[in-house]
């Protein structure tokens, strides 16, 4: 079975500062990796995903994440945050089931990013 650990439950940061939200995973098989964002009172929205290829993936709203297989990490970064980035961020994995469509997601506990003016 796979698991996901988000190392920080809350991350406060000032506007225009850089931010990194950490995510580590554990799995005995290959995985696909995702970051979802949940804005206040809204549903989850996909931020970015890693399936294969380049280990640096870029997503919406200026976010990017880097897959590090040796460290089993998929940390999310943004060089300069905005007030509007205040939200809860979830890291998730699904098992690479050899091309089938089964994409059951295992989520981390979430990281609340609060951007202060």
């Amino acid at each position, binding site marked *: 079975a796979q698991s996901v650990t988000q190392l920080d439950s809350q991350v406060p940061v000032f506007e225009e500062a850089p931010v990194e939200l950490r995510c580590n995973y554990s799995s005995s098989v290959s995985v696909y990796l995702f970051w979802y964002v949940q804005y206040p009172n809204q549903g989850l929205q996909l931020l970015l995903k890693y399936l294969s290829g380049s280990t640096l993936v870029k997503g919406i709203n200026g976010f990017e994440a880097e897959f590090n297989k040796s460290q089993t990490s998929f940390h999310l970064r943004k060089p300069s945050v905005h007030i509007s980035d205040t939200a809860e961020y*979830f890291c998730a994995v*699904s098992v690479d*089931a050899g091309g089938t*469509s*089964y*994409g059951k997601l*295992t989520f981390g506990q979430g990281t609340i990013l609060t951007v202060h003016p």
Partner: protein
Amino acid sequence: GAGVSQSPSNKVTEKGKDVELRCDPISGHTALYWYRQRLGQGLEFLIYFQGNSAPDKSGLPSDRFSAERTGESVSTLTIQRTQQEDSAVYLCASSDRDFSAGEQYFGPGTRLTVT
């Protein structure tokens, strides 16, 4: 186009009552998932439907929980004899089978409170 919709948005029920939560996936999406999000915790997988295949019920926490899906459309999640620990936000997601590791589109959730 229309996204995933869920109803009701909020449900308050007394302990011991049964509740039914509804999910309307995006039209044409063959895969449907239910997740539970308890306060301060991440999302827990509950059940997965894919076309006419047998559903994966491995995440259902007890036999009080059940779910059905009509073809490739509406799904209902039923919780019988609700307990206070069932209080959570129940999220539904759907995805297109063509994307083997594709994006799941989430609904806004149903916030269930058991008093």
